[in-house]
């Protein structure tokens, strides 16, 4: 009987006459084995003198020789200085205070240098008013060692020239152009530099017909215009969110780059419940932004609805009646609640808006004035955005008309960032002289007659006025790597001034800014806060625009009357990782996962599930779990882009989002040429556009690092509660320690009786703990990049990230709720009973809600005291130190990966390949220049070993050694890790819990403290502070 049974391998076999089955019977391999490639050419085979026997001999010999040679160590050379600079001691880091001012990112920073090489950017804690280093600023050090930098001045055809040739040729042309009375245009980034402004005015005096146009790639023109109209000065109102208890934001992503950024540390201060109080944050927005993700209440609204909402809010707060039609009832209620809370908060409330409309910005200013908001400061305007879109548009028109004789650009890349780049290129060809100061042969510099090789900011001098009266200095931290010259030096040369720019700044500061204070002290500190009366004249030709005062209420009325848009509205935004796209050739930033979508190496069209379904766009997971997305054609006024689609929970229906900064084509390595250029759709410098979207052919492969988006009701991963419960109920209710049954008695998992391991005495010496406050963490990701820089974490590239082989030691998990709140998830999970229910409802819980709650959770190695990884390592490569750190001896690791499998937190990373000096991974670790950024105190790992967060043991050991050398006790706050030092929001606190007075020891005793997956019993040394949401309405 059994012999009659026929097994078949595929349906095809059932078909008796199938040709495929027949072919496969004869042929084991479907594809031909490509033997012809190496055996096909008879001639070469016969011509070669190597016989098979010889070949084997050679193989044998070379193997033997290689193994013998391996026993002999190489001769290493050691080359000391001829004259050692007194400030450099090999092996000891120096720190310099300086300032980044690249036109998009402005921050006072400390630069760590080793043997004269800058290797890391840190926060300058003295510069409290100047913002702190975000992810891009942390990564900017890598730009110094970019192998594609322009190394000397060049002509358009690529011929290198000397600076003297450059000087004589350009000066001659400039003089001629000036004599012919044609326009000379300086098109620059926002420098916000008093010395540069002075220099430019001197340049104007010398050449006469000079126009200075300031151009911000991502414009804040509306806000600038509104502020200028109201206060008579070009700037942006300053906000200090640490003074606000009720924050209402209408479309302002103020935790990332809104109006220059840098507001997050102030914001975080009031997010931590203190004496039962924390701020309340209400966000109205279309895209799911970092700010919206942190809000207590988030209302998705399309951009045109936001205008109405703001007008309505104005009407309700000020009582100045404005009729607003077209808002849905639920939105009306939300606005009414927000307005009543604002009124209640009075001067503790603040309203901000990101709507790119002069009226909207004016309304926000008016509401804040009405409230008398303490967080709102109109007297010290922010100076880091000064661009003027009308002037830029006028310039392009003039160039096209041939009215411009010479154009000199610095810090801008208009051919990439202008929507009408083609017009600009055409205009460029009509100028008699075009010069770009650029670090790269990029889209713009390749079109101009001269590329003036510009230095990196770490090689330059400079000064910045962040806010009125708040100054900072930029100083070089390394001698210029290449034959470069900064824009200001060239201006000095053109004006016939023999001074160096350093002397120029020193003189300018001495006469106008310092008022008797020491320049050297200002240079040492990096910052100087002067008297507010110091006024430096602005050089922009800004008189063209209308500066008529908008009477109170009129702005809101105009806003309310603004036309509703039909169809989809596109909001263009900047990503935390890429910003305006200047640093697109930075592999750290390319691989940095976006905090919201958790996708790296791409930009994409974010769209709501409902809209995607209506249009027929999908996101699917392929077999290995990676994410694929449909393509869509996005069309704005005839300009069309083919963009991959990412379905984004929380995206307002009727709206889509697309980020700037991608789609660069020149001046960057092939691997970094990712995404699409959204500037093409940035028409009229308006970040909101009306679009049509159609599905396009093909599937896009995303490289996402988090593929599961919801928590599935597992409340022990991110513990959450509301302010009300936090204030009224016992800790046991909202932050209970899990219990297990021991002899039918419920015993907390933390008690020794239920532990598999014996307790080890850690009460002597240091015992490090890291506390992560989920309330203060905004998910900004500065810690991720700081960790990269400190620990030589390799970049693996898009295809490897897609295979989940990313190497980040620190990841920031982002979770969406599948119900409207995480609390709802927990309840739903608890109420599941029976197979049918669990199948359907767990399935439902995998999908995020339409407008979900969002939570961020930084996860690094938890340094468990009872570590599961340590017990399974067959070679004892990972072991525990008395100080609480889980050690990883790379040279001992044989790569079994048992530890990674046994880690409940999935924080161990395996080196699947050799990531340094490998052409397959052509990032910074593949060239000598890029390798200069490596931290010499941390090993660069090789292929086949496991690695993970070390709790920056090199930093704790250094702190201990310094104290030993000085013979002193260590103070609280001295111990830091790269992530805790980078976190300016106070979300990460590191220290010694055996020092009972330390901050972290107190946090360990805090009611909010819990350990990740406490029920596993690993006793981690990383603690989390329960997230508290202020959901109290009205």
């Amino acid at each position, binding site marked *: 009987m059994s012999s009659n049974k026929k097994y078949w391998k595929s349906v095809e076999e059932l078909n008796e006459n199938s040709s495929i089955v027949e072919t496969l019977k004869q042929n084991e391999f479907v594809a031909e084995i490509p033997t012809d490639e190496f055996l096909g050419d008879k001639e070469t085979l016969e011509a070669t003198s190597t016989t098979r026997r010889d070949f084997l001999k050679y193989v044998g010999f070379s193997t033997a020789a290689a193994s013998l040679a391996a026993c002999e*160590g190489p001769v290493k*050379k*050691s080359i000391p200085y*001829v004259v050692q600079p007194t400030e450099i001691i090999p092996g*000891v880091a120096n720190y310099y205070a300086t300032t980044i001012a690249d036109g998009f990112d402005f921050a006072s920073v400390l630069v760590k240098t080793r043997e004269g090489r800058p290797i890391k950017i840190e926060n300058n804690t003295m510069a409290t008013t100047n913002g702190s280093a975000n992810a891009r600023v942390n990564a900017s050090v890598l730009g110094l060692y970019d192998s594609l930098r322009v190394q000397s001045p060049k002509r358009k055809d690529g011929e290198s020239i000397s600076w003297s040739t450059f000087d004589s040729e350009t000066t001659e042309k400039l003089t001629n152009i000036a004599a012919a009375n044609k326009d000379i245009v300086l098109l620059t980034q926002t420098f916000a530099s008093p010395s540069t402004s002075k220099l430019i005015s001197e340049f104007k005096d010398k050449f006469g017909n000079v126009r200075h146009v300031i151009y911000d790639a991502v414009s804040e023109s509306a806000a600038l215009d509104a502020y200028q109209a109201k206060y008579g000065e070009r700037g942006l109102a300053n906000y200090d969110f640490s003074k606000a208890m009720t924050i209402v934001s209408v479309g302002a992503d103020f935790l990332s780059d809104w109006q220059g950024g840098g507001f997050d540390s102030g914001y975080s201060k009031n997010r931590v419940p203190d004496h039962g109080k924390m701020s309340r944050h209400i966000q109205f927005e279309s895209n799911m932004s970092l700010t919206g993700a942190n809000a207590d209440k988030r209302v998705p609204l399309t951009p045109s609805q936001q205008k109405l909402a703001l007008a309505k809010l104005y009407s309700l707060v000020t009582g100045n009646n404005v009729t607003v039609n077209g808002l849905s009832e639920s939105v009306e209620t939300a606005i009414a609640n927000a307005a009543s809370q604002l009124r209640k908060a009075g001067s503790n409330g603040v309203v901000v808006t990101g709507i790119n409309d002069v009226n909207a910005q004016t309304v926000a200013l008016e509401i804040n004035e009405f409230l008398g908001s303490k967080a709102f400061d109109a007297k010290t305007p922010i100076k880091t955005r000064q661009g003027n879109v009308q002037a830029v548009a006028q310039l392009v028109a003039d160039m096209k008309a041939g009215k411009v004789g010479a154009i000199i650009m610095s810090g801008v890349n208009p051919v990439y960032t202008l929507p009408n780049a083609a017009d600009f290129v055409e205009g460029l060809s009509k100028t008699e002289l075009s010069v770009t100061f650029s670090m790269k042969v990029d889209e713009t510099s390749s079109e101009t007659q001269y590329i003036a090789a510009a230095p990196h900011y770490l090689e330059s001098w400079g000064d910045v006025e962040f806010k009125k009266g708040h100054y900072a200095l930029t100083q070089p931290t390394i001698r210029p790597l290449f034959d470069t010259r900064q824009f200001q030096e060239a201006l000095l040369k053109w004006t016939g001034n023999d001074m160096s720019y350093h002397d120029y700044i020193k003189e300018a500061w001495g006469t106008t800014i310092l008022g008797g204070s020491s320049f050297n002290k200002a240079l040492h500190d990096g910052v100087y806060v002067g008297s507010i009366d110091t006024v430096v004249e602005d050089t922009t030709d800004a008189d063209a625009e209308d500066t008529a005062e908008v009477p109170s209420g009129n702005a809101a009325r105009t806003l309310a009357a603004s036309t509703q848009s039909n169809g989809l509205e596109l909001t263009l935004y900047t990503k935390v990782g890429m910003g305006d796209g200047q640093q697109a050739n930075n592999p750290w930033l390319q691989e940095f996962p976006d905090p919201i979508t958790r996708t790296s190496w791409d930009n994409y069209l974010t769209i709501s599930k409902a809209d995607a379904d209506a249009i027929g766009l999908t996101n699917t997971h392929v077999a290995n779990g990676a994410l694929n997305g449909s393509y869509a054609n996005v069309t704005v006024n005839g300009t069309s882009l083919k963009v991959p689609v990412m379905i984004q929970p929380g995206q307002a229906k009727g709206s889509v989002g697309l980020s700037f900064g991608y789609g660069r084509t020149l001046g960057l390595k092939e691997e970094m040429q990712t995404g699409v250029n959204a500037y093409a759709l940035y028409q009229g410098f308006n970040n909101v556009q009306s679009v049509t979207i159609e599905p396009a052919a093909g599937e896009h492969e995303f490289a996402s690092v988090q593929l599961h988006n919801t928590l599935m009701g597992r409340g022990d991963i991110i513990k959450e509660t509301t302010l009300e419960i936090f204030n009224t109920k016992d800790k046991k209710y909202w932050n209970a320690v899990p219990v297990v049954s021991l002899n039918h008695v419920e015993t907390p998992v933390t008690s020794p009786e239920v532990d598999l391991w014996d307790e080890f005495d850690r009460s*002597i*010496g240091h015992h490090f703990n890291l506390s992560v406050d989920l309330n203060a963490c905004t998910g900004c990701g500065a810690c991720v990049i700081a960790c990269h820089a400190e620990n030589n974490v390799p970049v693996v590239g898009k295809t490897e990230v897609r295979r989940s082989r990313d190497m980040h030691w620190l990841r920031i998990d982002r979770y969406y709720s599948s119900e409207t709140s995480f609390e709802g998830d927990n309840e739903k999970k608890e109420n599941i009973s029976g197979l049918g229910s669990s199948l359907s409802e767990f399935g439902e819980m995998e999908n995020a809600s339409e407008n979900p709650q969002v939570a961020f959770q930084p996860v690094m190695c938890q340094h468990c005291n009872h570590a599961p990884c340590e017990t399974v390592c067959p070679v004892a490569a990972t072991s525990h130190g008395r100080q609480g750190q889980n050690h990883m001896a790379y040279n001992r690791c044989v790569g079994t990966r048992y530890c990674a499998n046994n880690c409940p937190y999935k924080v161990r990373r395996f080196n699947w390949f050799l990531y340094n000096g490998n052409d397959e991974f052509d990032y910074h670790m593949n060239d000598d220049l890029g390798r200069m950024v490596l931290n010499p105190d941390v090993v660069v790992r090789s292929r086949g070993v496991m690695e993970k967060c070390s709790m920056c043991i090199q930093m704790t050991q250094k702190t201990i050694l310094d*104290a030993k050398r000085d013979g002193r006790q260590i103070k609280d706050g001295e111990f830091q890790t790269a992530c805790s030092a980078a976190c300016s929001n106070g979300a990460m606190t590191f220290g010694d819990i055996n020092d009972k007075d330390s901050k972290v020891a107190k946090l360990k005793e805090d009611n909010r403290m819990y350990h990740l997956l406490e029920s596993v019993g690993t006793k981690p040394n990383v603690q989390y502070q329960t997230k508290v949401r202020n959901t109290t309405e009205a």
Partner: protein
Amino acid sequence: MKKSYQSLEANLTNNMRQVIHRKLSNNLLRFSLIILIAFTTSISAQEDCDPVKGKSLFNANCAACHQLDKKMTGPALRNVEQRLADDEGLDRAWIYAWIRNSAGVIKSGDAYANKIYNEYGGAAMTPMPQLSDQDICDILAYTAEEKATPPSGGDTASLSPVAPVEPGISNEIILGALAILFMLLAIGLYLVNKTLRRFASAQNIELPEETKGTPLWKAFVQNQFLMIVVAIFFLLASAYYVYGYLSQIGVDQGYQPVQPIHFSHKIHAGDNGIDCKYCHSSARVSKTSGIPSLNICMNCHKSIYEYNGETSPEYSKEFYDGEIQKLYAAAGWSDADQQYTGNSQPVKWVRIHNLPDFAYFNHSQHVTVAGVECQTCHGPVEEMEVMYQHAPLTMGWCIDCHRTTNVDVKDNAYYTKIHEELSKKYGVDELTAAQMGGLECGKCHY
């Protein structure tokens, strides 16, 4: 520190012996010299000036800028008084004035003073108001000494052939005598044997024939137990040696590469007793001990342009002087013009102590905090003509030391608390580095 003091003492006694020796052998020459000087220089003969005292004063005050026979920062000073008197007509009063306050003399418009000031690039001489007339007189007496013919060269030439020969000859004689003795003994024994046999045959005594048994090796092969034991022994032995061979791979103990400049630690740290950390200053504060930059060398070698210490056939004075010239070439120092040319050439030293990249070692931890002597790890550096790797630098070597060395906790506030607690825990007064946590993987591997 102790060791360097010892070597300093040894150095002093050496010098003293040399001085005495020279006095004995060259007594006559010196006496005749003094008479000669007495005749040629009238002034110094008049006063009671001591050239020996003058020498020490010269070395203490003048030698930084002046040499007797060589132009340096300042002019060569051999017979300076005579020269000034003969060429410029300047008397000792002028010299007093010049030495105590050269700037004043220049300001006064003195022609020669201004000439010499300009000749040496406007470098003013450091005023020496502390020198008394007698001191200056002593110094001048020293400068007026005739250039001595190098006595040390003659000494070593006459001594060196004799000294090493003695033990060589005696050894050979003893060995030769022993060999002859053994030969005589062997011959004697053979003769005795032969005589005895002759006696035996004469008296017709039958000598027993040796019976032939199984040869030893055959018996050995047939004994299986022995074979197994031997096989096991051989296997174990080869395993031991293979293991030994493999574990020495990458261990470069005794590594003594040829360096681009023959720098003798023996001369610097040994003979001259220079503290290690004078040149390797970063060992105190940094993880690396630091190879000194050339400007550190030039601190001394600006004025030390030749070698005047002990020499050997292998390393002659010319050899050492040549090495100093190599330093000048590298540092871009023109000895003739006494200034830097700007053409420097960094020296590519061959690194001797190569710790693998995955092991973190910090000098300052050991040198400053623990107070470990450099010699503990680097061996008798002050005796090394050519530097070599003294320690194996293996992990076992590190750990052995950490297990046995007590941590120096005295007067270090950092250790106060932890020392107290740990002593109580382990019940000991002194704690080893291991008890302090110095054996944990992550302390050195990150």
